[in-house]
């Protein structure tokens, strides 16, 4: 009889645990799910080109990527920088084709003739 009474609290505890587990709201249950998100392929870092020590005596190309109706911005950049940095040659160029197109000829010309480039702009 004494042994049966001693087991009673344990039985009650187990019942309570079972009751709580059964009645716990689904949203409070712990859950582990798979990650739905992927990842980009590893990208090799490209170290940036060394910067110029001065703009003086340098040729800088100002390149319009040919987004529609934005060429006036590049003309103004050329005017403003020519006034402010008269010892630098500021050359304005429009990329061939539309803003979707590559222009390897222009890039080759810039590599051969310039020391820096300003490029823009889109929209």
């Amino acid at each position, binding site marked *: 009889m004494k042994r049966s009474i001693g087991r009673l609290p344990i039985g009650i505890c187990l019942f309570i645990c079972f009751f709580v587990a059964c009645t716990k709201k689904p949203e409070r249950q712990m859950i582990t799910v798979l990650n739905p998100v992927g*990842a980009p392929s590893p990208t090799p870092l490209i170290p940036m080109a060394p910067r110029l020590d001065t703009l003086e005596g340098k040729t800088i190309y100002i390149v319009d990527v040919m987004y529609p109706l934005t060429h006036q911005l590049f003309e103004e950049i050329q005017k403003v920088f020519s006034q402010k940095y008269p010892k630098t040659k500021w050359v304005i160029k429009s990329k061939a084709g539309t803003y979707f197109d590559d222009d390897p000829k222009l890039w080759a010309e810039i590599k051969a003739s310039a020391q820096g480039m300003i490029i823009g702009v889109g929209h």
Partner: protein
Amino acid sequence: MPVAPIVTGRFQDVAEATAASKGMPRERFTYIHHPVSNKSAAECRKYIEGNDPLTGKRVIEEIVAALTKPLSEEEKRTGFLEKPRERLLKTDTAQNVERQFLENGWTDGLMIALPTEQKVSEMLKGTSHKPDEIVGQMMPSPAQGPWKYTVEMVAVNAVMAGAKPKHLPAILALAATGQGSLPSSTSSMARMMVINGPIRNQLKMNMGIGALGPFDEANAVIGRTWTFITKNLGGGGKAGTTYLGTFGSNYNYNNLCFAEKEEALPSGWKPFHVQKGFKQEESVVSVFNGWTLLNYSAYNPDPYHELMRRQMVALEMSGAGAHHTPGVNIQTAGTLIIDPVTARALKEEESFETKEKLSQWLTEHVHFTMWNYWNAMPDYLKKAREGVQPYASLLKRAPESDSPLQLFSPKAGVEIIVVGGETNPYWYAGDFRYLASVSIDKWK
């Protein structure tokens, strides 16, 4: 060579994400006010002489610093840019996990099924392919590097969308196209997917009444999964970074997922996948890119093909909106989604023996209007004003009349798909361009 890139402030996220994807996460951008397009020279000068709207620094000084300020150690770094990925998310309450999915933009804003090991394992029974097999790759935007994904990763997203194992081969084929459903363009593009072959009936796809509406499981969940794959496995659909559609497109909720009603094709009209070189008994998914569907549901004594032609002229203002941009994206593609009743009439009463004949007739007879022709071809307008023929004589044509330039590229033409409940001779005319087809059978 040192470069000073200039971008308008509205596109900071895109510019920086693109530079990072090219391996230059420290690119020295200077931002100016948005937009520049069509602003006067005086306004542009103000932008240049003013401050960067994001940093508050003077634009001129930022450009000079971009060219001359010595590089930091970070800017000189080599190696790889990698984003580690865990297969499982941290254990939490279902409520918190659901919130995590919603707040991270991994869903379409609607309820999802959480992808537990058990559910994903069950989903994987829908294919014989191994969970770690690479299915394909997708680019977040045209300028960014690709993301690759496995069978299991696709299955996780299929579970979320409410798909069943039987849907998985079609979803894997869709993922294998490498095409995302949320193009990054500011123009709010949409995507469309069409399923052909025996699998249409095996999945009980809706090809009849309401095929393009919210009525059936397969059409809903396969199409919905495309959005999840795009966002989660292709890196696309991040508003402001890899998605810039100014309005967005409601079509993206299930990406116009439907099946062609092959059984109702008039004799001589081939199923779409057969037109693309597949065997009739193969199951195939085909994907398209576009913007708009124009509805025709009226009664008119004119022949249907003539009504279709007139509808399609209007597409020069839709997906072909870029035609207003000089030199950009000249010519587009057309699509007809037509009810079997219309298809039969086109064959029996208007003598279009095949889909190809109708497509050819429309390609040859839908032209730019003159006003758009001059907008799109400024060099021709210049020549016309200088008296150069044949352009000069075209100046006499009314702006709303046909130009010599066909709206649809002969290469892309007009694609035709037959579907619908045969309740009336109706159709949709749209500007969807065919992109790719992939066998579903290969992913069973």
